[in-house]
């Protein structure tokens, strides 16, 4: 009898444990088959961004864009048009640290109150990528809007999305523009030692070599570095025509200013990450002729942009004025992310799986910089144009895209991407 009771007890315990672990798949021991909305009909979204650390400025911009998107939704009467069906964003600070990001990811997928429909973030690929398997295994959509790591989406199963082109594509395009369009053959490279910097450097160097150019110097720096004079002195000795920088926007400001200190005179190119109004504003005259790459220029007459700008000014008037009456590039991306998220929910994406399936079908969605479509790998299909800081007739410095460049220069063919 004792043996029977023991076996019965053990069996009950096994059933209980099995029951708990089964429910954990959906997060927080609670399967939400019909809707991810809470009792009030509101949807909760977790946002993981580096609010502290060297990439904090990017987090701030993305948050601004997301909040503008929410403002638009609020004006439209929330999801149901009658003031119900709110979206609530819960922000987490991953400090631009993979371990911190993974801890947050575990917390998000395990949470049942609130139950998160999806996760947005992080900023850096080095944080989004390690979290991809956590979200994938828990079957939570991960909208890593700025993740450009090439194997992020394959790793995330069917659960990851990105609004950025891959590092290999972006770096190859920049190399093609530099070498074949601008005709630069003596190039030096400066890059950050994070995952993004290391990979873009690798792909840029490979493409340059394919195009017959060996880089004069390739200098890596650590996160938090402030004084770049030693590597700039070294690069100056190689007498480059162009210095390509795969750096964060704060770093490019320091690098360009210190290049002046050591007397390094040449052309400068930054990646799309630093093609920002902040760089333009902080470099002043030193920024003139700086090259960058960028998606399509915002059409200021586009109703989507006009509405966005109005809401942006309503929420961030001081910032808008400070940035020479323009919206922040990463805020634009945050806004696009929010609009597409709203679209997916409104079109049936009310559970995690339905959201994932719906967002994957996004095609020609009217975003701030024109139509947004996801390719088969759930990554945005985007053209990148050569860009430059030029002085306009009023004497103001502005970022200007070479919008017609693709009519005469097939960058993807030159870069070996076709």
């Amino acid at each position, binding site marked *: 009898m004792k043996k029977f009771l023991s076996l019965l007890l053990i069996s009950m315990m096994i059933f209980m444990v099995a029951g708990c672990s089964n429910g954990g798949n959906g997060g927080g021991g609670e399967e939400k088959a019909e809707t991810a909305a809470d009792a009030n009909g509101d949807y909760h979204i977790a946002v993981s961004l580096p609010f502290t650390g060297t990439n904090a400025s990017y987090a701030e911009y993305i948050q601004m864009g997301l909040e503008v998107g929410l403002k638009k939704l609020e004006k439209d009467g929330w999801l149901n048009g009658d003031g119900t069906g709110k979206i609530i964003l819960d922000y987490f600070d991953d400090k631009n640290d993979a371990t911190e990001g993974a801890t947050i990811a575990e917390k998000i997928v395990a949470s049942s109150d609130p139950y998160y429909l999806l996760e947005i973030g992080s900023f850096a690929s080095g944080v989004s990528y390690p979290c991809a398997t956590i979200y994938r295994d828990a079957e939570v959509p991960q909208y890593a809007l700025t993740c450009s790591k090439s194997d992020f989406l394959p790793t995330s199963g069917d659960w990851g999305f990105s609004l950025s082109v891959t590092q290999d594509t972006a770096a190859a395009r920049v190399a093609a523009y530099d070498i074949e369009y601008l005709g630069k053959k003596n190039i030096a490279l400066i890059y950050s030692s994070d995952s993004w910097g290391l990979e873009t450097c690798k792909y840029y160097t490979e493409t340059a070599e394919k195009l017959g150019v060996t880089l004069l110097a390739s200098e890596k720096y*650590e996160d938090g570095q*402030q*004084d770049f004079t030693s590597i700039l002195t070294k690069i100056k000795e190689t007498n480059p025509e162009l210095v390509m920088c795969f750096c964060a*926007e704060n770093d490019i400001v320091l690098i360009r200013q*210190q290049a002046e200190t*050591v007397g390094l005179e040449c052309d400068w190119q930054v990646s799309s990450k630093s093609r920002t109004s902040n760089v333009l504003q902080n470099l002043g005259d030193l920024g003139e002729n700086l090259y960058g790459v960028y998606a399509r220029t915002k059409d200021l007459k586009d109703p989507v942009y006009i509405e966005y700008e109005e809401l942006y000014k309503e929420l961030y008037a001081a910032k808008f004025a400070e940035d020479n009456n323009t919206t922040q590039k990463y805020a634009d991306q945050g806004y696009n992310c929010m609009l597409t998220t709203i679209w997916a929910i409104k079109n049936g994406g009310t559970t995690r799986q339905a959201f994932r399936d719906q967002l994957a079908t996004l095609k020609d969605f009217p975003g701030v910089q024109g139509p947004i479509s996801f390719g088969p790998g759930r990554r945005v299909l985007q053209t990148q144009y050569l860009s430059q800081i030029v002085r306009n007739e009023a004497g103001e410095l502005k970022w200007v895209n070479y919008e017609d460049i693709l009519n005469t220069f097939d960058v993807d063919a030159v870069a070996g991407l076709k």
Partner: protein
Amino acid sequence: MLLQILVNGLSQGSIYALTAIGYSLIYSILQLINMSNAAVFLTSAVIFYALYTSLTGSSIALTFILTLMAAGMIGYIIEIIAIRPIREKGDSNTYALISSIGVKTILEQICQGTFGSEIKQFPTLLDGKYIDLFGARTSAIQIIIILTTLCILGFMSWFTQHNRVGRGLRALSQNIRACHLMGMPVNTLIGISFAVGSMLAAVSGVAYCMYLKSISISVGSAIGNKAFAATVLGGIGELKGAVVGGYILAIAENLVSGYWSMSASNFISFGILILVLIIKPTGIFGKKEQKKV
């Protein structure tokens, strides 16, 4: 190239040295590593920026004086709030160290909250003026930083040797208990040492941002660690050790970055530190403590 690297190393070393003196000064009196010094470096630069852009307009001199006063007050307040209660209870310096780390975190968070995370232009002196020193392009601000450091070093030497308060600080570094018994205002003097350390961090923070022509919230983090390493390298508690340690560390870093790689410079500079600690644990100028039994 070598001369250019040495000039860059000297100006960077001056920044390390100024911050390191602050660490050393407090350690010599309380045997406490005051980690909040790095945050005062950042906070002072933020205060300078805020005052310059809002209140004092274009007067760099007035802004600088106000910043120094503010930094001194911050240092004094840190001692009263975060260190003195622990010290007066007779608790271990480990608690005070943890308390100073707490102050550092709080100050950094306040700076980020008020200043934001973006890089911003910082006012500088004699912008665009360069001197050719035997082929090394040297900016006016680099020369100002090096000369200022030497002047401050001279002043600190005079202050600790000939000034009444400075002599009091030296007396404290020898025996606090005896100073108490002699009726010296020990608490006030310790507060002053924190104020002086913070003012040195302020000079260094403002000078560094003037050199960079920019300010961002990450500006103090790297310098704090380097200055602390310089302090240990030169001999913790020794003012001249802090200065020499600062210059050695900065020049070594610049040489390694210039001739090898920037990533290796941390490895080398901290490698030198470990080597010195193994061979001479008291640092270059440090003296072995004789304990009476």
